[in-house]
């Protein structure tokens, strides 16, 4: 299956192209290998470490099975708190996201002096990971679910506003033009033209962010921001791996149930 090359004579232009392509490919792979080797030298991450670590991983898994079922009543409360944090955080983030999304969309806010700074702020908010927000808010407001909720407000605001303003920009301009032509005000155009078209997308993104936030909320406790993560941290610190695996198991079940429900609602919407 090799490319056919003429046996003798000067190479034709397509052949030259093939050779340069091959050299380029070899150069790319070489570059990748060099970067990888440099990376593993810098951080001392080598396959050798993996081989050394494998037996330890095995014994860790052995200790995690079977999970400590008697721990369920204790973790049920923090688990519910995790869900509460996710619900409130997503909702407040979604509410703040609405005006910002409208201000970011070029077809609603043609004035670029407003929309471009809004977009820059949005991009800046989205660069900060949720756990970083949480660790800062824990420092400000103290340990507890309130810090976690605030972290999720900022985190989900970034996601929902970004996705929603892209959906708003993609809506059908027909109804908006018709309304403007008959003399509707900016507010009326938004309420009767934009909202009906963008609402299903908004709710869908809202639910998607909620799914993301349930996962995020389950680890917020590791930095002290409430929820189930605190207990996970504690049981890992006490080397109670059977309890840790119970917490992980319950989190998985809750995440799967919420994912399933939210996906069904989203399918109905779009």
């Amino acid at each position, binding site marked *: 299956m090799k490319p056919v090359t003429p046996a003798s004579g000067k190479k034709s232009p397509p052949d030259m192209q093939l050779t340069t392509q091959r050299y380029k490919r070899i150069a790319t792979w070489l570059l990748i290998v060099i970067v990888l080797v440099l990376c593993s030298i810098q951080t001392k991450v080598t396959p050798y470490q993996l081989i050394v670590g494998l037996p330890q991983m095995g014994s860790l898994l052995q200790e995690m099975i079977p999970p400590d079922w008697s721990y369920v009543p204790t973790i049920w409360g923090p688990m519910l708190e995790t869900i509460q944090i996710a619900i*409130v955080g997503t909702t407040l983030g979604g509410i703040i996201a609405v005006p910002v999304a409208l201000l970011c969309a070029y077809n609603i806010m043609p004035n670029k002096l407003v929309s471009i700074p809004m977009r820059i702020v949005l991009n800046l908010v989205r*660069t900060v990971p949720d756990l970083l927000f949480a660790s800062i808010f824990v*420092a400000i*407001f103290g340990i507890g679910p*309130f810090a976690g909720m605030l972290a999720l407000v900022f985190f989900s605001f970034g996601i929902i506003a970004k996705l929603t303003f892209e959906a708003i920009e993609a809506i059908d301009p027909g109804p908006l033009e018709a309304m403007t032509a008959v003399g509707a005000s900016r507010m009326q155009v938004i309420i009767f033209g934009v909202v009906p078209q963008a609402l299903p997308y908004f709710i869908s993104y809202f639910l998607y962010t909620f799914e993301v936030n349930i996962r995020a909320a389950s680890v917020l406790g590791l930095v002290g921001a409430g929820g189930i993560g605190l207990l996970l941290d504690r049981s890992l610190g006490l080397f109670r791996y059977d309890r840790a695996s119970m917490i992980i198991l319950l989190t998985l079940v809750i995440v799967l149930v919420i*994912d399933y429900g939210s996906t069904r609602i989203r399918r109905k919407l779009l």
Partner: protein
Amino acid sequence: MRGTTSYKPMGARIRFWVIAIVILAIYYWAFQGMHFEGIQATTKSVSLSILDGFLHPDWAYVYIPEGEDLLRGLLDTLIISILGTFVSAFLCIPFAFWASTNMSKRIAVSGSGKAVLSFIRVFPEIIVAILFIKAVGPGAFAGVLALGIHSIGMLAKLYSETIESIDSGPQEALIASGANRLQVLRYAVLPQVIPQFLSYSLYRFEINIRSATTLGLVGAGGIGTPLIFALQVRNWNRVGVILLGIVVLIILTDLISGWLRKRII
């Protein structure tokens, strides 16, 4: 506008109200758990000192000739996400072929593959990182493994969707001319999917660099470790410069990776 609202049938109206009451009840319950009154009295002074710290970042921390500084932390974070993405980009290829419906004749095979992938996806990467820290000890290695394993879930799903969407023409032509399975894979499937694979891997790299900044918060290497130390001793000037570094690093990698992705496709 009011006169045009049509009256909905009774059943739809009852359904609407039931849903509304359920949602209100959920919100009532959720807000109960937030303890708004539990906010510390020191909040104001702490916020002011944080603001002061952010306005006067600890520039001396950016580069210290000997030992731990911002640039080395960011470099470690970058390396963890590069290696993690690389590990998962290769590990997920067999998973992707396992989970794609057009690569196996039985639906049970691809169905089980998809189930395994969604199982991997539910684990938050921080939890994966903690488990690896317990197994191989704290450090960059645990971070690389955590990202490598966690990313399989998403990458293999995207890869398998790419494989499912390929044109079956070249594949059939090769089979008709007597090529074996490996040759079909090499000359019909791979050329079609490689650009998309690369693009998805870069996209995942953008996500991984965000995760890598937080992995250090639990001890899995990178910039998160000095950040959590600075937070614990309330050294806000240092926190400010570290956050600034993280934001700059993420923006830069997003720009470079976005440019590369545009060139690939």
